[in-house]
């Protein structure tokens, strides 16, 4: 399995390269920071200043050359110059990336657990009230704008806080600016308190479609011959369900959730705005607004990496779930 993982990672590198190149072309086409700079002041900056600016951003080089400079820079940990001389993209990026990674990982885990539980129950109790309710809710969440849900969740969170008479849920930021008593435990609960609402709002959207998948694949498996056989052999229903049916029925969900990771990275941008998180999404929005090409690229690169890693995890999970699949 280790050998397989290494091989997969090796294969991922060219994919990532092409992906960064596509991203590079897209972002380069989407804005011209030098033109932006040249028109940024009145009277306009001198030609010398414009040239110096272009040189700093490698904008005087042809596209391919520029890509090469950026790429080789990466190996030195240099994510390229920002349009804003005071902004160090690399330094700004990593902490923010950690913040976002925490958010999306929690959201994916939550959405998966919910999707499996709801999917399985509504498959077993097909056409029951519960099935209809979850189906309807699923469609409703699918149809709801993400930030709409976030606004409503905030309201709900504050309502709970008021009932409880203490702040359980926080609505802004990824942590408090400081803690009265700075212990590891308090830091932990503070972080969790800030995470719950954003995580739920990001998770619910995906939960909706994933639970539909889970229900479908569960139904298919339950009606398959080998489950019938297992039942006929008199295995305990619980064993049939968990050991045999669920295990197989999880495979499509693993695939689809890995594919959806890219969209979750995108969705996190919205969540971070509503909850005022200083994460990678804010980094992206700022980079776009400032036509900070290398900032956008850094985002795409890391987002691409996340997608590839999650897909690799999904591949490895197959082996755990399906005894017929062996990687060696």
């Amino acid at each position, binding site marked *: 399995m280790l050998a397989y993982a290494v091989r997969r990672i090796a294969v991922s590198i060219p994919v990532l390269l092409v992906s960064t190149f596509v*991203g590079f072309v897209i972002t380069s086409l989407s*804005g011209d920071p030098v033109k932006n700079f040249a028109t940024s002041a009145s009277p306009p900056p001198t030609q010398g200043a414009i040239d110096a600016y272009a040189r700093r951003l490698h904008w005087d080089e042809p596209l391919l050359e520029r890509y090469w400079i950026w790429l080789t820079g990466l190996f030195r940990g240099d994510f390229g110059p920002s349009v804003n001389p005071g902004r160090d993209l690399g330094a700004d990026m990593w902490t923010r990336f950690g913040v976002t990674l925490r958010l999306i990982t929690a959201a994916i885990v939550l959405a998966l657990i919910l999707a499996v539980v709801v999917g399985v129950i509504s498959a077993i109790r097909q056409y029951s009230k519960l099935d209809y309710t979850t189906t309807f809710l699923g469609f*409703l969440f699918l149809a709801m*704008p993400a930030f709409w849900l976030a606004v409503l969740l905030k309201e709900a969170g504050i309502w709970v806080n008021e009932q409880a008479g203490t702040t359980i849920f926080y609505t802004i930021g990824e942590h408090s600016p400081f803690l009265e008593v700075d212990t590891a435990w308090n830091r932990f609960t503070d972080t969790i308190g800030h995470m719950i609402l954003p995580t739920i709002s990001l998770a619910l959207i995906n939960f909706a479609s994933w639970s539909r998948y889970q229900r479908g694949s569960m139904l298919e498996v339950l009606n398959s011959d080998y489950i019938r056989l297992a039942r006929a052999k008199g295995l305990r229903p619980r064993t049939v369900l968990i050991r045999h049916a669920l295990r197989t029925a999880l495979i499509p969900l693993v695939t689809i959730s890995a594919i959806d990771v890219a969209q979750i990275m995108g969705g996190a941008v919205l969540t971070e705005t509503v909850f005022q998180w200083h994460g990678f999404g804010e980094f992206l929005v700022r980079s776009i607004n400032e036509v900070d090409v290398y900032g956008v690229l850094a985002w795409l690169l890391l987002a691409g990496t996340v997608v590839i890693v999650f897909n690799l995890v999904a591949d490895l999970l197959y082996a755990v779930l399906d005894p017929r699949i062996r990687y060696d």
Partner: protein
Amino acid sequence: MTDTAARRAAEREFTVRERTQLQLTVRRFLRHRLAVASLFVLILVVVFAFVGPLLWRYDYAQFTPDNSVAPSLKHPFGTTEDGKDELALVMRGTQQSVKVAVLTAVAATAIGAVWGAIAGFYRGLVDALLMRFADLVLTLPLLAVAAVLAGNTRGSWWLIAIVIAGLQWAIVSRIVRGVVLSLREKEFIEAARALGASDTRIIFRHLLPNAIGPVIVNATILVAVAILYETALSFLGFGIKAPDTSLGLLVNNARTAVDTRPWLFYFPGLFIIVIALTINFIGDGLRDAFDPRQQRIRQ
């Protein structure tokens, strides 16, 4: 009992007539009650959006003297703080959102279908290259890339649609490629080739029409997806720009009004939900209609 027997007999008499594929599909679709009801509601919404503005007394850009009034007979959906009629705004917003969504669906479907068909038809290296590229597009976070590109659209609805479509076609191409791969070895394709049909003709006349079912189903879902993406882009400020409006822009502007002027928050939001919801149900109905094998499984 005799009653049902008689009806069955009548039905049999009736079914003697030959039906085209289309008739069969329509019939199967009509049997899906939820989908039919959804289609009806959706048609109402579209009529409301495109015909409504011609009949309604206020224009969406018009500043009326009534600022921030709650729903009333004069302003059924109330007004905004600057005195714009919310009903007129919602009609215009729905119109723009639907335009974005439909163009997205059409463009993505057209590109994706051709892309997938070519890949599936030629196979080999062409297939590998085209599909790897499609896979690549699938791994790009749509919202982010759309935001990057849409930052330059200056709120033009069709550019926004093209941007969303530019990232959604990859899914269509995969579906079509799958269908084409399974069909290309079939006898009727062989026959066409024997008759000297060109590759283009085979692809467009024989292969693509056979992929129409899944493609249409996917296109409907794309409409719902595009509406939500337009909304998300508006939220980030990369969508349609004032003074024009879209449903996304309207809900976004009203996101602080949930408790204070709920009509501004709920009316446009409701329309987004209704459109997305009905389209998903219609897609469900179409899936059943095009693919009778995929019936509900009964235990």
